[in-house]
């Protein structure tokens, strides 16, 4: 993954063309906190890419900077070959976003929210109608489509937000914690939809800290901690036969306490 850009121009173009996302030296500081300190990352086209890391690793901040929602202090991000911060309008057309910690317009019903999103993007009404209906049906939100999003469960919110991100058929999907607090059935539905999306050439970049899931569904993965990318590459290549969780803990440096020290009283009658 961390390949060097070659000196030969045509080769560079070919390499860049094969990449859906390229991050170079992304930096973000909030006051005295360095949230992201120089992230370089390449994501292949058609790839199911997992961004993993402990809480506070800088995943959300990085995704916000790639998706044009948070201006980086330094560095550049290209999505589908377009510089996100130099040509934001063009770049936004190519991407679908499901951010974490940002609300939706929750006083609209699920169906209204999709209509709203489609019309914001200038899509024709009948096309929005058709796609919204299909997305709601596939994601199992058909019967809840006329309910206000504010009354949705967390899983339903994630699903309707995913539908909104997919509506305009983007080239690259950025999903921040799409599986957080989602029930197994919904998670399976979301996975199936995303698999179909990558199967047809779409690229998915998503963050998570559920290693099992990342191991199962991702082609490539990057491990982040302390605002940096510690390792990136193919899932199989990275774990080298071991469970991903073990590699992750080793990289991140969190010592696993055996539970022998302290807490002697716990569980004793």
């Amino acid at each position, binding site marked *: 993954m961390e390949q060097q850009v070659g000196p030969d121009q045509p080769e560079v173009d070919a390499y860049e063309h094969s990449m859906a996302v390229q991050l170079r030296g992304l930096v973000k500081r909030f006051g005295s906190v360095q949230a992201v300190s120089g992230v370089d990352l390449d994501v292949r086209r058609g790839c199911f890419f997992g961004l993993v890391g402990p809480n506070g690793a800088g995943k959300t901040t990085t995704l916000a900077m790639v998706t044009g929602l*948070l201006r980086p202090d330094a560095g550049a991000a290209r999505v589908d070959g377009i510089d996100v911060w130099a040509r934001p309008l063009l770049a936004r057309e190519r991407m679908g976003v499901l951010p974490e910690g940002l609300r939706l317009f929750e*006083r609209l*019903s699920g169906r209204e929210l999709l209509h709203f999103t489609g019309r*914001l993007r200038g899509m024709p009404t009948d096309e929005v109608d058709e796609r919204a209906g299909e997305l709601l049906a596939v994601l199992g939100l058909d019967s809840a489509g006329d309910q206000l999003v504010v009354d949705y469960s967390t899983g339903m919110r994630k699903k309707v937000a995913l539908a*909104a991100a997919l509506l305009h058929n983007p080239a690259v999907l950025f999903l921040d914690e799409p599986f957080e607090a989602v029930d197994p059935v919904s998670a399976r539905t979301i996975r199936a939809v995303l698999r179909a999306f990558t199967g047809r050439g779409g690229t998915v970049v998503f963050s998570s800290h559920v290693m099992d899931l990342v191991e199962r569904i991702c082609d490539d993965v990057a491990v982040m901690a302390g605002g940096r990318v510690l390792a990136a590459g193919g899932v199989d290549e990275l774990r080298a036969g071991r469970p991903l969780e073990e590699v992750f803990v080793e990289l991140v440096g969190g010592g696993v306490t055996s539970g022998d020290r302290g807490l002697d009283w716990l569980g004793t009658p």
Partner: protein
Amino acid sequence: MIGTAFRLRLALLRGALRAGPGSTARRVGLVFGGLFGGAAAVLACFLLTVARGHGRLPEDLAVLLFTALVAGWVVLPILTFGSDDLLDPARLALLPLTGTEFLLVMGVGALVGVAPIGTVVAALGLLPATATGPASGLVALVAVLLLLAMCVSASRACSSALSGLLRSRRGRDLGVALTALVALSFQLINPLVQVAVRSGGAGEDALQGLAGPLRWTPPGLLASAPGRPLPAAIGSLLLGLLVVVLLLVLWQRSVRRSLERAEVSGTRRRRSTTLAPRGVPAPAGRIGAVQAKDLRYLFREPKRLVTALTGALLPVLAVALGPLALTGSRPPAGLVFAACGMGLLSALSGANRFGLDGTATWMLISSATDARDARRDLIGGDLAAAVVAVPMLLTISVLLAAITGGWQHLASTVGLALALYGVGLGMADLLSVHAPYVVPPSQNAFGGGGAGQGCTAGLLTMGAMLVEVVICLPLLALLVPGLVTGAPLWGIALLLIGPVYGGLIGAVARRAAARRWAERGPEVLELLTAAG
């Protein structure tokens, strides 16, 4: 247990005042609430004291006061539910408490604070007002204590019984809407009362008429006890005690029920097939989408309705009804121009558009794929505001003309008001983009404004109003000759030119705001996210 509950209550009060988002507003609120409540309590006590010896007046006043106190104790916690952790039994559900201990903790919570102290201070006026000797003095003292017990038990019995509803989203929305309604109705009640008082015949008769039946309610019985013969007084007190005991039983039951019953959240379906509300002409594309969303929100998010209503109606009510109340006669014809105040103010209720949208603003930013999209966002929002405000402005202008008979000023009023409104929309766009601030997702519709930001926002709004007025000064060239000569042609000219003038200036301001919004959208979002 009581000591623990007492410390818990104090810790919660301290926690509420600790630094954090909105803490300044809370502190200011508490200080003002305390000062206002304290002053009202002392005033009530003082009134009762000086009423002594005026026939039945002191007793009537005491009956009204006691009834009002119990009513206040019942209504206020329902309106401010969620602001007090010890109001909701569910918040205490995880503590290992028995049924009686539950009541103790909640009761101590209710008895420590500004409201209970104020209640006692006000009610203690009963002693100097009605006590004639040691026996009736003792009766009055017991009556005050029973009143406090009645206030607390009635209040908590009601809020506990309603806690399930109040916890739900729909219930909270209802609370916000009701609070706003109460506040608005005060604006109406005040002039009406003044009119009633001025028209004469009110005063003691009205007081007696009101207090008569209330004497036989439980708080009324307590208030009138010292004035009765001793056996009847003791009987009244015993009846009061019985009511308190009944309320305690009810309270305990409702606490138990609210802990046992699962929460039911409302899932009413919306049968809308289109985004835009029916009957509202909506442009296509992004402008129409934003307009439709804003209109939907106006009726689905009470916070917005309150902002729109207070921004538009309060100034008119205050300006128009105030003089009506003070003079008591038909107001002067020139009062029609009060509608211009609405034109001046109501546009500015949209001056924190993205703050109201909160972090959902990202949906606008990430879907802007055309250089003109930023302007469409602002136009859509302004259209939604205008769809509501302009008809309201016209209605109120006509209404004022009908009340005052100042039909000759109607055309110039509408022209001037629409000019101010048009400029105001542009100002609101500029403020929305340049000075957005976080609106905390609080239950209280009037608790808007982040820490220290409310003040800045207020100053900016004042500035924007000043700019509106200055920009519209050239229109005086049409207004003044009309007023001097009385020729209707000037008014018609103002009616035609005013809206165009305001609209054009507003459009220029909007264009500047849109440029900023297109460039600095992420910064606006960062501001709304960081503090939210």
